[in-house]
């Protein structure tokens, strides 16, 4: 069982970090909904507060790692330009998608949208985490702030979801592969 370095990085970016990010954002949304229906006063213990703060630090951190890894590690492999004469476009996912009318839309719409919209997620959830961590009392006082925070959290989930969906579809049609091979399990007879 083996995997190429590029495929592993791509999976880490999308399935692992991106996937965990989406789950964490969903948790934030649940927490925001829940806080609307909690009887006051409802206070967490000191340990509960620190766990909550940790969760609200990790969530945007996952988002930032996912977009930075995507843009600066995986995306350059995706948009690599092949030499003038090349036998196969398998190592050049963007060119491979554009070479066929049936798949060019995955780049022209999918990747073009994903590469930009995905960045809304960490920006929006950073703001959400800041308000939930540092400005909790203000959020309690102004219900409109809770609404705004909830809308931004939903946008983070949707934009991250769009990026994740197109990432998976693009990887299905033209996977990023190449580089050194990592042997995960040695095959027996």
């Amino acid at each position, binding site marked *: 069982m083996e995997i190429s370095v590029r495929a592993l990085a791509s999976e880490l970016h999308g399935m692992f970090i991106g996937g965990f990010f989406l789950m964490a954002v969903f948790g934030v949304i649940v927490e925001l909904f829940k806080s609307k229906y909690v009887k006051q*006063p409802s206070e967490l213990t000191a340990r509960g507060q620190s766990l909550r703060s940790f969760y609200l630090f990790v969530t945007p951190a996952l988002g930032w790692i996912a*977009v930075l890894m995507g*843009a*600066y590690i995986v*995306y*350059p492999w995706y*948009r690599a330009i092949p030499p003038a004469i090349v036998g196969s476009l398998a190592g050049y996912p963007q060119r491979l998608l554009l070479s066929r009318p049936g798949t060019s839309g995955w780049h*022209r*719409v999918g990747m*073009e*949208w994903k*590469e*930009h*919209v995905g*960045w*809304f997620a960490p*920006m*929006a959830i*950073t*703001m959400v985490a*800041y*308000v939930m961590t*540092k*400005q909790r*009392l*203000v*959020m*309690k*006082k*102004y219900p*409109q*702030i809770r*609404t*705004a*925070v909830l*809308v*931004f959290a939903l*946008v983070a989930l949707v*934009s991250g979801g769009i990026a994740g969906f197109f990432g998976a579809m693009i990887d299905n049609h033209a996977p990023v592969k190449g580089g050194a091979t990592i042997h995960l399990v040695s095959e027996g007879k």
Partner: protein
Amino acid sequence: MNAISSREAERDNSSAVDQLPNGPVAAAILSAGIGCCALGILAVIGDGSAAAARLLTFYLPTGPLSGVTTTAILVWLLSWLILARRWRSKTVAIAKVNTVAFALLGLSLLLTFPPFADLLLGK
């Protein structure tokens, strides 16, 4: 005795909450909308002009996306810093701030959607 002091503490706490300004939160909400909108506008500019795309290429392997996102993040953080300083101890009209932030967010989602951007650029 304990019940009385606990009620007093609750009252003190609630009056402290009443005096909290919403400016810092409004600054965070509005700047998030500004940052997203900046990203949408820069994405369209980078897509529509070869000169702008070259200018926005901060890191060659990533292409214009590097400049689009880095600039948008700087716009976001800078606007957050400026607004947070201006509204540090103020209470602003949060409904208006929300409306503007949602409008910017909606516009930014539209601008990054390739068919809409192509329509704008006449492609």
